[in-house]
């Protein structure tokens, strides 16, 4: 049996703002069906890596491969086609504040499908009920709590049934219970959608709950220090920085999911 094909491969990637290098020599692959966690301390370039993956900012050097396609070498229309197969949950939710939840979820559908309005309404109601927000169609984002906004944003991200879902710090700004509910929702959605999930986070509880594979980016040495399942890394990794991160600086090799 051969290993499943990687959904995303990152080769010799360097990220920089002008002459300020954030990360260099990144090499890793994200396998189809994985929940892949990109972890690291603040300011190490996790969110920038997402911007590269989403086509918002070209990398300084190196390449990103979606399947067999070299993402940044593709013409713009093809890049848009690749990005269309992804969905993203932004750190702040990034719901369009001038539109209701229903309109937020409907916009990608209206833009990419020719479905009649009635079908779109049904689809929107279904996606919102998947994230536990049935009946909130006519609410504006500002009228919701932070956790609800995150979930609504998730409903928008899965509107087009993406193959790859990106999450930018899903648990940031959520209380522990909402964060756990969101984690469970993420796991549930992966099971049912069969999507590949790429999660940027530094929330350890979340990392141990959901991750099947991971990469650790270090801001001081400006490169990746480890890759693998975080639970395995916790037991086997010999790098002090990684171990410090995974144990919140205590050095005790035990999984503590709160």
């Amino acid at each position, binding site marked *: 049996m051969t290993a499943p094909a990687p959904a995303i491969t990152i080769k010799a990637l360097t990220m920089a703002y002008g002459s300020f290098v954030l990360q260099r020599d990144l090499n890793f692959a994200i396998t189809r069906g994985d929940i892949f966690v990109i972890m690291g301390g603040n300011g190490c370039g996790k969110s920038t890596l997402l911007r590269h993956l989403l*086509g*918002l900012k070209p990398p300084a050097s190196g390449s990103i491969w979606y399947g067999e396609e070299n993402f940044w070498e593709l013409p713009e229309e093809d890049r848009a086609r690749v*990005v269309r197969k992804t969905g993203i949950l*932004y750190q702040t939710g*990034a719901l*369009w504040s001038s539109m209701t939840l229903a309109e937020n979820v409907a916009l990608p559908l209206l*833009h990419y499908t020719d479905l009649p309005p009635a079908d779109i309404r049904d689809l929107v109601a279904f996606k919102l009920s998947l994230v536990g927000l049935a009946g909130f169609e006519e609410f504006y984002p500002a009228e919701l709590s932070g956790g609800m906004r995150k979930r609504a944003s998730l409903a928008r991200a899965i509107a087009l049934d993406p193959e790859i879902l990106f999450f930018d710090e899903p648990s940031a700004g959520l209380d522990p219970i909402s964060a756990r509910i969101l984690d469970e929702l993420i796991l549930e959605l992966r099971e049912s959608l069969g999507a590949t999930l790429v999660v940027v986070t530094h929330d350890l509880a979340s990392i141990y709950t959901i991750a099947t594979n991971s990469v650790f980016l270090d801001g001081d040495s400006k490169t990746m220090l480890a890759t693998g399942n975080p639970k395995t890394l916790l037991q086997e990794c010999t790098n002090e920085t990684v171990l410090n991160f995974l144990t919140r600086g205590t050095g005790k090799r035990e999984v503590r999911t709160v």
Partner: protein
Amino acid sequence: MPQQPTLAIQRPQPGHLVVSLDGSWTLHTSPPPPAEFLAALDDSVRHLAFACGGLDDWDTRLLIFLRTVIAEARSRHIEMELAGLPPGAQRLLTLAETVPEKTTYDKSVRETLVTRIGRATIILFDQIREVAAFTGEIVLEFLTLFSGKSPFRARDFFYFVQACGVESLPIVSLIAVLVGVILSFVGAVQLQMFGAQIYVANLVGLGMVLEMGALMSGVIVAGRIGAAYAAQLGTMQVNEEIDALRTIGISPVGFLVLPRMLALMLMLPLLCIYADIMGILGGSVIGVTMLDLSLVEYLEQTRKSIQLSQCGQGLLKASVFGVLIGYAGCLRGMQCGRSALAVGEATTSAVVTSIVLIVVSDSIITFIINS
């Protein structure tokens, strides 16, 4: 009443110095300046200890004093014993010293003049490229509007039409009427001397139609709408809403910028016509009440003095202003950084840019038409 902080120096044996700190060393009291004490740390001192038996109360004040003392003692290689200090103070001092130095963000490098000029040039070229790209995107998105593939939403367009049109009417009325009044006052004083009061109507009519109607509605709309556009788009930039549009493949220019710009381009000429009429009415009030002209006479004189081509000149200006205000507001909003401060700067910059563009383009148009 807190006890006055005091400091006493004892020399139990040669070369040994014991500092006793008494009273209340807090930010609300004034302890003796460290300079006096530092003078006592001369070359004869080899060992320094602290005694805090009489210390009632302390906060950061004490720590700052101790840090100065410790730094001085260390530079003179004096042996120190911190055991006499309150345990909390010892721990805080240790903590302050163990903060690791972060070397990654070194901003202390001094830049030479050449570096700064170079950096400014690079930034200038980047900005030119950004403005050109934004302009190009507007043109391309405008063309796709006719292909039916644009994400342009008519509902947004009508919303902005209402915001910059109908909702601007009260303030435009007020300003235009007052400008008409001012113009007729200025003219009346001079023209009355020659008994030519009736020509106040010409002055006000031409002044409004050629210049003031377009200029005033332009400035009002720049403040009301240009600023609002920059703030709206800037906040969307901060909330990653614009990134969210890009990642689902919707052009933010087609979706957000075009409805805003088109609404302004449509409404500003209409506001200008309205301002012209209000200004002429304002002038007529002065004409009737102060210059003993009849309303019919005044309006008839106004009608005779203005030609349609002159109205056209005002409308042309208003249309150009509409494009410029929408452009400046949206450009500044889209260029906005990712902080609350940046939104404020974008808003200010949008208004300033709009007003500069309005005045400059007004001069250019007037010069071209009249030469």
